[in-house]
């Protein structure tokens, strides 16, 4: 019987097959590190007198906890400063390359890997961050790990893992395209609403179908990024010419004869026709319209044209209680049209939607328009390279002319760890990935949206799609 893409990558990294109940031992090709989930792991190495086994397969950047303004000044919060300085000390001591604040390559770890060409098809990629699933867009097997596992990979360059189950997510439309105004963000929000926040548990998702094949690498990364929001270990897309085109010429991509050898190997990385997935899900992309979340988990989403749901009509008791709690937290009344929901803040950025294509899409909508009175719009590029590219294209001027704030690279308001936070009760339309209670600041309320919806919402002040601006 044939194998799925995920099974092929797994088999290629098998250091040792587990006996009986024992997990397999997998080799890790690329380990991405950042300041928040690594200090205790480096401490563990020191305590045990261990080294980093392969610093040349490890790279660190500062992203979660760095400010996005005044980046030339010392970090004002002493606890944050200590954490960033600890990463610098650890990287120096253990020989791990680091892209610190203000470096041309600094940025969100999941933007940095792909743009350097480090993220390649068929690799195993890990990071102490759940959105590591992003890298699966290249046909890599990429997943988030905890700090103990970070230490394990630093020490051994391997991880003991139970084999994942596989799930196909088939996304098709008649012409292979999405309707105007619909983006890959809407696709993944609709998938999560369909299968639920636990629907992917234990699975690697493989996104397939004519819509996926026609997506750019940036759009594919947005989809794979949010696999974890469906509870999945990883999300993958088979590499194709779009992937190879994106990689060719990047700093760390193979060159010359190595390139040809690599492409030949990468072309083998597809699910065999006779392979069988453990589960399959189908999405009708012709029916998709812009999608937003109304609740406090990413599965609580609906098309923008709908209304806030009525919990009393939800049959399942746990889901009903969850919906009641979500609406109370979000300050929303059942039956309110989603388009009538007024926001205070619009955030464009994050590892989900902080890439150049996302900024172009948002700029395209907001060009020549103004951010509505009483609304604050933050645009935070995913990396310094994205920022430089955007500035070369004049996107920063478009945002600034509209009244938005143009920032330096980092995770920023996605997780409210640095000073970019919502105040209690404030409401945001956010291109990020999580609408959990307090995620963007204590008491803050988050609606997850695409960059197009974010920009249109900034202009109108209520949740909107670009077609509402005409």
């Amino acid at each position, binding site marked *: 019987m044939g194998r799925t893409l995920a099974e092929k990558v797994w088999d290629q990294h098998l*250091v*040792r097959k587990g006996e009986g*109940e024992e997990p397999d031992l997998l*080799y890790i*090709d*690329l380990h991405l590190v950042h300041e*928040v*989930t690594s*200090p*205790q792991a480096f401490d563990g190495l020191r305590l045990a007198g*261990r080294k980093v086994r392969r*610093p*040349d*397969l490890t790279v660190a950047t500062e992203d*979660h*906890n760095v400010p996005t303004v005044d980046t030339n000044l010392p970090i004002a919060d002493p*606890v944050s400063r*200590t*954490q960033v300085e600890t990463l610098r000390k650890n990287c120096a001591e253990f020989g791990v*390359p680091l892209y610190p604040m203000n470096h041309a390559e600094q940025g969100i770890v999941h933007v940095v890997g792909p743009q350097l060409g*480090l993220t*390649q098809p068929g*690799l195993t990629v890990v990071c*102490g*961050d*759940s959105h590591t699933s992003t890298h699966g867009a290249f046909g890599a097997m990429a997943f*988030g*790990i*905890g*700090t*103990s*596992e970070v*230490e*394990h990979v630093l*020490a*051994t360059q*391997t991880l*003991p893992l*139970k084999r994942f189950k596989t799930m196909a997510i088939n996304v098709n439309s008649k012409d292979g395209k999405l309707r105007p105004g619909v983006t890959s963000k809407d696709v993944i929000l609709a998938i999560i609403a369909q299968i639920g926040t*636990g629907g992917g*548990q234990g699975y690697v998702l493989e996104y397939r179908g004519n819509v996926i094949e026609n997506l750019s690498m940036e759009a594919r990364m947005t989809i794979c990024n949010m696999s*974890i*929001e469906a509870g999945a270990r990883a999300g993958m897309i088979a590499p194709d010419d779009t992937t190879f085109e994106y990689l060719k010429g990047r700093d*760390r*991509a*193979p060159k010359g004869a*190595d390139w040809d*050898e690599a492409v030949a190997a990468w072309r083998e990385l597809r699910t065999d026709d006779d392979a069988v997935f453990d589960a399959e899900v189908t999405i009708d992309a012709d029916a998709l319209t812009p999608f937003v979340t109304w609740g*406090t*988990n990413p599965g609580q989403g609906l098309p923008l044209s709908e209304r806030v749901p009525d919990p009393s009509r939800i049959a399942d008791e746990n889901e009903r*209680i*969850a919906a009641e709690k979500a609406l109370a937290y979000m300050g929303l009344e059942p039956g309110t049209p989603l388009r009538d929901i007024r926001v205070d803040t619009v955030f464009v950025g994050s590892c989900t939607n902080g890439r150049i294509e996302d900024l172009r899409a948002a700029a395209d909508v907001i060009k020549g328009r103004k951010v509505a009175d009483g609304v604050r719009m933050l645009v935070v590029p995913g990396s310094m390279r994205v920022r430089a590219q955007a500035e070369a294209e004049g996107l920063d001027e478009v945002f600034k002319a509209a009244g938005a704030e143009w920032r330096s690279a980092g995770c920023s308001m996605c*997780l*409210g*760890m640095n000073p970019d936070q919502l105040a209690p009760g404030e409401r945001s339309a956010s291109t990020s990935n*999580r609408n959990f*209670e*307090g*995620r963007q600041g*204590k008491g803050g309320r988050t609606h997850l949206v695409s960059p197009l919806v974010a920009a249109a919402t900034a202009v109108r002040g209520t949740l909107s799609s670009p077609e509402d601006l005409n």
Partner: protein
Amino acid sequence: MEPFRTHTGIGVPLRRSNVDTDQIIPAVYLKRVTRTGFQDGLFSAWRAQEDFILNQEPYSRGSVLVAGPDFGTGSSREHAVWALMDYGFRVVISSRFADIFRGNSAKQGLLAAQVAQPDVELLWKLLENEPGTEVTVDLEEKTVQARDLTVPFQIDDYTRWRLLEGLDDIGLTLRHADAIAAFEASRPKRLPTTI
């Protein structure tokens, strides 16, 4: 890691599904570089509300948390496990755990016991009707017992063995150092490096 065999402590009913790791410990508490001292961040937003279960005696002294489905979703932060343990929890019971959370728990010796939802409902009722009820979790027998109620829980055999023995993962892996070196030598030279 300390071996885990049985634990007995006050059960805390948490009637919430999708308790994500941002609820367990918000990001602002993740700035520390130590591995301990995270108890003040545990459920910090909910603990600010007077009627939250952990603000009530005797639940505040609980060590067995009984939660709704999909516990530990979201971020990979192991700080969620550290915060639960620093507060005093030794066991979390749920009908479904997020994968990364379950993995992180196993590394630290926090038992993530998977109990069928109808049994979780029974435990909730019992713990709510009789606050302070002690719950005994037996890892060898894979049972949860409170007063007259005994229900089974699931955990994979490998994790169970590791917890019972208190074994360190890195030490186990390094027993296979030769296999790692052999694999490493066979990797194609074209694969990317960061230096």
